[in-house]
């Protein structure tokens, strides 16, 4: 589904991702772990199409298409979803009309019929239950005045509505208490299907107790330096990142 080859990217001339390689197949959950500053969020933003990051090399193929050539909206329509680490507050833009517009754009791209207001509301009602989201939030402006937990829950709720092929969760666990974490993870698990995939980006192993990954990658200095099963996450939790940093050296090369 997703094939990243030798991806190099940076910001303002400073390289952040250096020859990153990653393959994700349909039905899989991959976790990307790493210390602060290792490039985890950069990877998420680059995949979503943020223009602040400059791609200097490599290729990303998503379901046969050259992802790096696509505009952010076209990536979303093709089935990429980024759950933002810091969801943006957008005063004056109503949550419901925003999400309806987004869903209908995605449906159009999939060759499906657009939903009318009634159909959309029925869908929303169904999905809010999944995330135990207070429906009154949807009559407010996008993320405006939402608590940290509400914002994260709202991201996964949007994901539930849009039904992406590849969901990228960027530090979705940060700022969540244990109850909210359980709800969010439960939502993600219920959305798992054989034909979609999830990329979980996290600093801590905690989230991976709830969203169990098939593969864990360790990202250091912009490179994936180690990959393994879910037990790798446990090892990182126990021993921290230092032992890996020691083995890879300061430039990230093993």
């Amino acid at each position, binding site marked *: 589904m997703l094939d990243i080859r030798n991806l190099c990217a940076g910001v303002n001339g400073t390289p952040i991702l250096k020859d990153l390689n990653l393959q994700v197949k349909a039905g899989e959950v991959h976790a990307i772990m790493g210390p602060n500053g290792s490039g985890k969020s950069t990877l998420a933003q680059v995949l*979503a*199409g*943020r*223009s602040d990051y400059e791609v200097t090399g490599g290729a990303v193929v998503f379901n046969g298409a050259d992802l790096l050539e696509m*505009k*952010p*909206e076209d*990536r*979303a*329509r093709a089935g990429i*979803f*980024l759950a*933002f680490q810091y*969801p*943006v507050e*957008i*005063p*004056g*833009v109503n949550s419901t009309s*925003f*999400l309806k*517009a*987004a*869903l209908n*754009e*995605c449906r159009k*791209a999939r060759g499906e019929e657009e939903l009318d207001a009634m159909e959309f509301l029925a869908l929303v009602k169904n999905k809010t239950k999944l995330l135990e989201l207070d429906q009154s939030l949807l009559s407010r*402006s*996008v993320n405006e005045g939402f608590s940290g937990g509400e914002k994260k829950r709202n991201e996964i709720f*949007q994901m539930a509505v*849009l039904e992406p092929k590849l969901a990228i969760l960027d530090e979705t666990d940060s700022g969540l208490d244990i109850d909210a974490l359980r709800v969010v993870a439960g939502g993600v698990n219920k959305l798992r299907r054989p034909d979609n995939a999830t990329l979980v980006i996290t600093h801590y192993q905690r989230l991976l107790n709830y969203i169990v990954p098939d593969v864990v990658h360790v990202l250091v200095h912009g490179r994936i330096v180690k990959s393994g099963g879910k037990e790798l996450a446990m090892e990182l939790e126990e021993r921290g990142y230092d032992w890996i940093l020691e083995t890879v050296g300061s430039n990230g090369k093993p």
Partner: protein
Amino acid sequence: MIDTLKQPKTSSAPERSGTIPNGSDEDRVKLALAAFARGDSVGFPSSLRAIRDSARIQAAKVGFPTTRQEEWKFTNMAPILQLPLHPAEKGSAKLAPQDIARFTFGLNCYRLVFVDGHFCADLCSLPDDGNDLQLGNLTGQLKANSQEVEKHLGRHAESGANFFTALNTAFFQDGAFVSIAAGKTADKPVHLLFIGASEQPGATVLPRSLIVAHRGGSVKVIESYVSLADAARVTNAVTELVLGPEAQVEHCKLQQESERAFHVATIQAVQAKDSRWTSHSIATGARLARNQIQTLFDAEGAKAILNGLYLGHAEQLIDHHTVVDHARPRCESHEFYHGILADRAHGVFNGKIFVRQDAQKTNAKQTNRNLLLSDSAVIDTKPQLEIFADDVKCTHGAAIGQLSDEAIFYLRARGIGVEHARRMLIQAFASDVVERIGIEPVRAELEQMLVERFEPAKD
């Protein structure tokens, strides 16, 4: 009918023929004043005569504004003088209700209609009995209701400092009169519709309106300016609002004139104890528009809310000068102005707040936020607070910005196209003002107007 002291002129003066007058700006002003004097056909009672005569002298004394004057620093009115200014004549074509339907919001209301400044009785809808709500054209009401009209007309909007206000007072021919009785609430909003139909460059209308709310009376008034013809007409309007104790007036001014037109307006409110005035000024039209919106707190406990939205594109210049005069203690004012400027449009906001020496416990708040959609768009924004009391709360803020890249990216990352995302954010910024309008059909129509205004051009 009204007596005519002077016969309306029948022959065309040379300056009316559409040629641009020669000579200096001063000469042009003189020519214009002479043209208005000749067109002054309505007989006014002697007390008003005196006010008009003095305003005429003031207009000549103050002179046409130039950018050398602080109040007009950013707003060059000189292009008006390039026009052959003359009072707009009554057109021969008669408008039918369907001709004005698109200006009526589908609103169930009372309505006064003026075409090129001339009252059109057959397009109006008036209350069956005029006991609670008195409504009519000003010259008619000067006869039917002379005591009340004379008590206020021309006594609140000052001619001493502003050429255009003085010009209106000296030469206005008609306008609207609205009065709500003590303790009464108007059962429907009142719509004052001023239509520009003349295709003559320089055709000038001087609409003059008076809105009175007696003690505890409440009324909502929409004052809208629209064009049927795309011509370099001039509107110079003055509206006086008098709010008695505990009176409540919501006043919504909509300026949607042709983008070749010139629009100048003064709105002066005077507020008695515990009165509430809500003012909205929505300006989207005219090539050059200047709004002077002012209130005087004449007693304690009064409150004014001034909302504004100006949308400029192409070469438009839209100027708002507001003045809130906290002359008495314990009054409250909230100003909330948003501007959206595209292309080479120019916006001006000047917000003056006076807090007089004994106006303790004043609470004044002013915000002006501007969205610049192009590198060539310009905004001059200036808060001007003059505070002479010490126990007061005054805050002001001005902001100029572009659309947030973060927000645009967030919307795009959900599948919304970049142009659509920009539109959503622009509309959200404008809606922030529009949603404060308390007359639902007007609000809904403005929301729709915003959608259309920022719709991408269709081939």
